[in-house]
C-alpha cells in the first residue's frame, strides 16, 4: 500500500515538469538541431529554454561545451521569429561569460539594435553591452548615444541601464554620454528618467559641485517617477550629511515635502532619510507620524518598514519613539514575527523597568518561531537591558540561559554568549550566575569556536571568583570529552587557575601532567609548556607567558614571518615588532536593528600592507610596526588633495602621500614630493606617481631612515608636491599635444612625534605591580608646568602627545595617567604622569621607565 502511494506521488511530481531530469549532454546534442534550415522556431525555442533552465539549475558547462552551444545559437539569427530571437539574446547573455569568442555576434546584434523592429532593439542593446569590452565600445558609441535619446522608452532605458553597467569598467567613455543622459532625465517615461538620473548622478559621483547643481535643479522640478524620487532623496540626504552649513536647508525642505507624496515608497524613503540624518531636522514629528501610520497598515512590509525605522530612532530620540508606544504595543502580537520582534525590542529599549517582565513574557511566547537574525535582535535588546537595569540581571540571565539551551546557529549562540559575557564583565553581582550558565552551556555545546571562547573567558574570570575550584571541574570535563581544539583551550584555561591561585597549584599540576599524555599534539604541547612555566615559580615569567600574554595581529604576524624568512632567516625573530591586536570596541549606541552584514573589520596596518608591497625592497625594512591614522596636508576643497600616512618601521618610516587630482582638465605626470627633513634623517628611496589622472587617487612613497639616536627622531618635516602638468580634454581624458609644464604645490608641514613611534595601551588593573616590577629599569622623570588652565584639557593633551588613549586617565582632583607601550624596535616603556591644578596652571610630574634609557627620555622630551 505504501509503495503504491509513493509511486503515485512520484508520478505526480515529475508528470508536470517536462524539464525535470534533463540531461546536459542530450540537451547540448539537441542544440545541433539549430543548424537545420529553415529554422523551426517553436522547437528551437524549447531547446533554448532547456539550456537556460539547466544553467539556472546550476549545471556547469565546460568552456568547450558553452562555446559550442553559443555558436550553435548564433545560427538562429536566420529566423525572424520574435520570441525565438529574444530567447537567443537571453542565451547570449547567459553564455557570454562561459564561452569564448563571443564577440562574433557583435555585428548581428548591432544590426538588430539599429534595425526597425522595436521588440529587438532594446533587448539587443542589453545583450550587446554584456558581451563588449571597452575597446569594442568605441565602435558602437554613436548608436548608444542615439539610443539613449530614442523616443521608444524601452530602447532608451536599455541603453541607459547598459551605460550604467559599463560605467564601472569604462567610466570615461560613459561620461561622454552625459549630455544625452541629461536630456533623457526630462523624459515623460518614468523609468527612463529614473535610469537617466542614475547614469548622470553616477558620472558625477566624485564631483560634489555638479552633484549639488543636479540635485538643486531636480528638487525644484521633481520628476514623476517614484523610483527617481527615492533616488533623489538619497542624493539630497547625502548632500545634507556632507554639508554642515545652512546651504543644505533646501534639501531638507525637499525631503520633508516628499513626506506628502502620494506613493508610499517615496513617503517611506523621505521618512527614513529624515530619521537617519545625523543632523537632526528641525522637527521629527511629521516623519514619525508617517511611520506611526505605517505601523497600522494592513501590509506587512509597511509595518516592518515603520517598526524598523522607529526602532532605529530609539538611540537618538527615545522620547519621539516613546510617543509611539501605543502603536508598537499593537504590533506585539503581529502575525509577522519580524514585526513583532522589532516592536517588543523597541518597547524594551524605551520602556520603564516595570514593563520589562511583561514584555519578556511576550517575547518568550514566540521566540522559537522567529529567524536567527531576529533572535539576535532580541538578545541584543536583552543585553542592553542588562546594562540599563542591573537589578533585573537575575531574570534576564535566566532568560538568556533558556535561549542558550534552544536550537540555533552559531551566530545566534555566539550573540547569547556575548550577552552573558558582557553581563559577567559589567555587573559584579551577576558574575557568578553568568559563569555558571556558561559552564552549563559548554557541557553540551556543538560549536567548537564558541566552546573555545567560553573556556578562555572561564580561564580569565574564574580564578578571580570566590570559589575557583568549582569551575575547574567543568573545564577539566572538557579535557576528557571534547575534540582537540576544545581540549587545548581547556588546558590553557586550567593553567590560568594554576598561575593565579597558588593554593590550587598542586592540583593543577596533576591535571596538566595527565594532559601530557593526550593524543593530540597541540594539547600535549600546551600542557608541557604550561607545566614547565608553572614549575619555575618565577612570578614575572608566569605573568608574561600565562596571565598577560600580548597577542600580535595574526595576519601581520604571518606576513612579518614570511618577510623575515625571505630576508634574514638566520637571525632570531622579535615578536614585539608586530602590532598587537586591538581590542574591538563596540559602539555604545543602543540601536535596535537587524544587522546589515558588516564589512570585515581590518586594522589600518592590514589595509595598507597591500599598497606598501609595491615599494621595491620594502621587505628588507622588517615588519611594519605601526601605521598612523591619515592626516590631511591640504585644505578640503583644493585643486590637489594630499593626505599623509606614516608607516613606522623599526629603523625607517615610509611616508605615503595619497594624492587626488580634482581637476578634470589636467593630468599630472611624474608627481613626487620634495621633503625637507630634520637633520640626521636620511631619505632612502622615493617612488613617484608616473601619471595622476583626474579623480583617481595615487600615492607617492618616500622611505626615510630614522636617526640612530631615538632622541633625535622628534622633528618637523616640510613638503612640496612637484609635478608636470599636462592639459587634457575634460570629457575624453585625452592629453593635449605638447610638453606640459613643471609646477609645484606647497603642502602643510607635519611632525614626527613620540605618539607616531609608540604603540601605547592604557594601564591595566595590575598596573601598580607592573610599575613596581620595572623599578630597577632606567627611569627618567621631570616636572613640567603646562600651559592649559583646565586640568582635563591638560590631561587629554598629554595623552595625545604620548599616543595614549583617553582611557589611561584616572583620578579626579589629581589626575593620574598610567600607560605603557612598545617603542618602535621593540623596547617596552611604562609611563606615569600626575597632574595637579595649581594657581599658575597645571603642574605635571612625569616619569617613564624603560630598559632603554633613551626611550624613557624621549617620552619626556615629547611633552616638554
Amino acid at each position, binding site marked *: 500500500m505504501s509503495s503504491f502511494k509513493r509511486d503515485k506521488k512520484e508520478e505526480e511530481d515529475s508528470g508536470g515538469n517536462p524539464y525535470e531530469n534533463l540531461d546536459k549532454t542530450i540537451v547540448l546534442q539537441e542544440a545541433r538541431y539549430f543548424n537545420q534550415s529553415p529554422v523551426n522556431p517553436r522547437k528551437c525555442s524549447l531547446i533554448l529554454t532547456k539550456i537556460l533552465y539547466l544553467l539556472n539549475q546550476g549545471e556547469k558547462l565546460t568552456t568547450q561545451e558553452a562555446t559550442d552551444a553559443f555558436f550553435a545559437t548564433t545560427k538562429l539569427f536566420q529566423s525572424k521569429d520574435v520570441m525565438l530571437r529574444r530567447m537567443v539574446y537571453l542565451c547570449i547573455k547567459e553564455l557570454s561569460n562561459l564561452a569564448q569568442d563571443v564577440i562574433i555576434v557583435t555585428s548581428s546584434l548591432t544590426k538588430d539594435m539599429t534595425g526597425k523592429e522595436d521588440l529587438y532593439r532594446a533587448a539587443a542593446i542589453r545583450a550587446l553591452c554584456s558581451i563588449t569590452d571597452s575597446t569594442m565600445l568605441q565602435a558602437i558609441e554613436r548608436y548608444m548615444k542615439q539610443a539613449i535619446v530614442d523616443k521608444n522608452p524601452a530602447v532608451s532605458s536599455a541603453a541607459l541601464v547598459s551605460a550604467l553597467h559599463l560605467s564601472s569598467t569604462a567610466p570615461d567613455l560613459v561620461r561622454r554620454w552625459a549630455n544625452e543622459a541629461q536630456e533623457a532625465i526630462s523624459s515623460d517615461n518614468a523609468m527612463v528618467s529614473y535610469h537617466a538620473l542614475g547614469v548622470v548622478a553616477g558620472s558625477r559621483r566624485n564631483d560634489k559641485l555638479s552633484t549639488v547643481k543636479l540635485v538643486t535643479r531636480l528638487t525644484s522640478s521633481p520628476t514623476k517617477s517614484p523610483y527617481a524620487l527615492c533616488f533623489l532623496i538619497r*542624493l539630497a540626504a547625502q548632500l545634507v550629511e556632507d554639508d554642515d552649513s545652512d546651504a543644505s536647508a533646501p534639501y531638507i525642505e525637499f525631503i520633508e515635502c516628499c513626506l506628502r507624496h502620494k506613493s508610499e515608497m517615496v513617503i517611506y524613503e523621505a521618512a527614513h532619510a529624515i530619521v537617519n540624518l545625523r543632523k537632526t531636522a528641525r522637527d521629527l514629528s511629521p516623519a514619525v507620524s508617517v511611520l506611526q501610520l505605517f505601523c497600522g497598515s494592513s501590509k506587512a512590509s509597511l509595518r516592518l518598514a515603520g517598526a524598523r525605522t522607529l526602532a532605529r530612532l530609539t538611540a537618538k530620540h527615545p522620547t519621539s519613539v516613546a510617543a509611539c508606544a501605543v502603536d508598537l504595543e499593537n504590533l506585539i502580537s503581529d502575525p509577522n514575527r519580524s514585526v513583532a520582534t522589532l516592536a517588543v525590542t523597541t518597547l524594551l529599549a524605551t520602556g520603564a523597568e516595570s514593563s520589562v517582565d511583561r514584555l519578556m513574557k511576550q517575547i518568550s511566547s514566540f521566540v522559537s518561531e522567529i529567524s536567527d537574525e531576529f533572535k539576535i535582535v532580541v538578545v541584543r535588546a536583552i543585553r542592553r537591558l542588562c546594562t540599563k537595569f542591573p537589578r533585573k540581571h537575575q531574570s534576564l540571565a535566566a532568560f538568556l540561559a533558556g535561549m542558550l539551551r534552544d536550537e540555533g546557529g552559531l551566530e545566534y549562540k555566539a550573540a547569547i554568549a556575548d550577552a552573558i559575557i558582557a553581563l559577567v564583565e559589567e555587573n559584579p553581582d551577576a558574575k557568578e550566575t553568568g559563569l555558571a550558565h556558561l559552564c552549563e552551556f559548554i557541557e553540551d555545546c556543538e560549536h567548537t569556536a564558541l566552546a573555545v571562547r567560553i573556556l578562555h573567558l572561564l580561564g580569565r574570570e574564574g580564578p578571580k571568583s570566590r570559589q575557583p575550584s568549582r569551575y575547574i571541574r567543568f573545564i577539566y570535563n572538557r579535557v576528557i570529552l571534547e575534540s582537540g581544539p576544545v581540549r587545548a583551550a581547556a588546558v590553557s584555561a586550567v593553567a590560568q587557575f594554576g598561575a593565579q591561585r597558588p593554593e590550587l597549584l598542586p592540583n593543577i599540576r596533576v591535571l596538566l601532567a595527565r594532559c601530557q599524555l593526550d593524543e593530540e599534539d597541540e594539547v600535549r604541547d600546551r600542557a608541557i609548556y604550561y607545566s614547565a612555566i608553572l614549575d619555575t615559580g618565577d612570578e614575572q615569567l608566569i605573568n608574561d607567558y600565562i596571565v598577560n600574554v600580548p597577542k600580535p595581529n595574526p595576519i601581520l604576524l604571518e606576513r612579518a614571518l614570511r618577510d623575515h624568512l625571505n630576508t634574514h632567516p638566520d637571525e632570531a625573530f622579535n615578536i614585539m615588532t608586530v602590532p598587537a591586536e586591538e581590542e574591538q570596541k563596540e559602539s555604545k549606541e543602543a540601536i535596535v536593528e537587524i544587522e546589515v552584514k558588516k564589512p570585515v573589520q581590518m586594522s589600518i596596518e592590514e589595509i595598507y600592507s597591500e599598497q606598501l608591497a609595491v615599494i621595491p625592497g620594502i621587505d628588507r625594512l622588517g615588519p611594519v610596526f605601526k601605521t598612523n591614522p591619515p592626516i590631511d596636508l591640504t585644505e578640503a576643497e583644493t585643486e590637489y588633495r594630499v593626505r599623509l600616512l606614516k608607516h613606522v618601521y623599526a629603523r625607517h618610516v615610509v611616508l605615503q602621500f595619497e594624492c587626488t587630482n580634482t581637476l578634470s582638465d589636467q593630468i599630472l605626470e611624474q608627481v613626487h614630493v620634495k621633503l625637507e627633513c630634520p637633520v640626521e634623517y636620511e631619505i632612502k628611496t622615493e617612488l613617484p606617481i608616473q601619471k595622476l589622472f583626474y579623480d583617481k587617487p595615487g600615492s607617492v612613497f618616500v622611505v626615510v631612515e630614522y636617526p640612530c639616536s631615538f632622541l633625535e627622531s622628534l622633528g618637523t618635516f616640510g613638503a612640496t608636491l612637484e609635478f608636470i602638468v599636462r592639459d587634457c580634454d575634460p570629457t575624453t581624458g585625452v592629453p593635449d599635444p605638447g610638453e606640459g609644464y613643471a609646477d609645484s604645490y606647497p603642502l602643510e608641514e607635519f611632525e614626527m612625534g613620540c605618539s607616531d613611534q609608540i604603540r601605547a595601551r592604557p594601564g591595566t588593573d595590575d598596573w601598580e605591580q607592573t610599575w613596581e616590577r620595572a623599578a630597577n629599569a632606567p627611569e627618567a622623570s621631570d616636572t613640567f608646568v603646562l600651559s592649559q588652565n583646565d586640568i582635563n584639557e591638560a590631561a587629554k593633551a598629554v595623552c595625545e602627545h604620548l599616543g595614549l588613549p583617553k582611557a589611561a586617565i584616572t583620578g579626579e582632583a589629581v589626575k593620574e595617567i598610567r600607560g605603557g607601550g612598545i617603542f618602535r624596535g621593540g623596547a617596552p616603556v611604562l609611563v606615569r604622569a600626575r597632574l595637579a591644578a595649581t594657581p599658575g596652571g597645571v603642574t605635571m610630574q612625569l616619569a617613564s621607565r624603560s630598559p632603554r634609557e633613551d626611550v624613557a627620555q624621549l617620552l619626556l622630551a615629547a611633552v616638554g
Partner: protein
Amino acid sequence: MVHTSMEGALFEPTLYIVKGMCILDIHGNRILAKYYDKDVLPTVKEQKAFEKNLFNKTYKADAEIIMLEGLTCVYKSNVDLFFYVMGSSHENELILQSVLNALYESVSILLRRNVEKRVLLDNLDAVMLAMDEICDAGVILDADPTSIVGRAALRTEDVPLGEQTVAQVLQSAKEQLKWSLLK
C-alpha cells in the same frame, strides 16, 4: 579610497537595488532564480542552501516579508508557487515590494491568471523573458506589469490540436484527469 567605517544609516544612492529574484515550487525547489550581486550568494550551492532556508521560514506563514541572512526578502505565494524578491537588508522594503508585485502580476497575466507550476512550466520561456525585462543585473528595468508583458509575451497563436502528437494529447488528457481526481 578605502572606506574603513560603515557609512551612516542612510540608504545608499544606487540603482543596484535588487540582489536576487526566485520562483520556487511547493517543495522549495528552484524553478527559476537569478542573483545579481557577485558578493551576495556567489555560488549555486550557497544560493540553493539559502533558498531552502528561505522556503522553510516562509512556506507556513504568509507574512509577506522576512529578513534572512542579511537580506530583506519579500514574497508571495499562490497554489504551488512561491515568488521571492531579495534586496540588501539596508534597502527600502517598499521598492522591493513593488518589484515583487511587478514579477507576480506579469507572470499572472502571462499565465492567464492560472498561477501554478504546471502552467508556468508550459510558459517557461515567456516567464524567463519577463524576469529579464523586470531587472537587469540588479537595476529595476521596468515595474509596470502591462508593459513588461507587452515585451515578454510574444507568442501569438497556441499550438493547434492537429500539430500535437498523439502522445502529447494523451499526456495532457491524463494530466487533466489526474488533477480532477485529486481535487
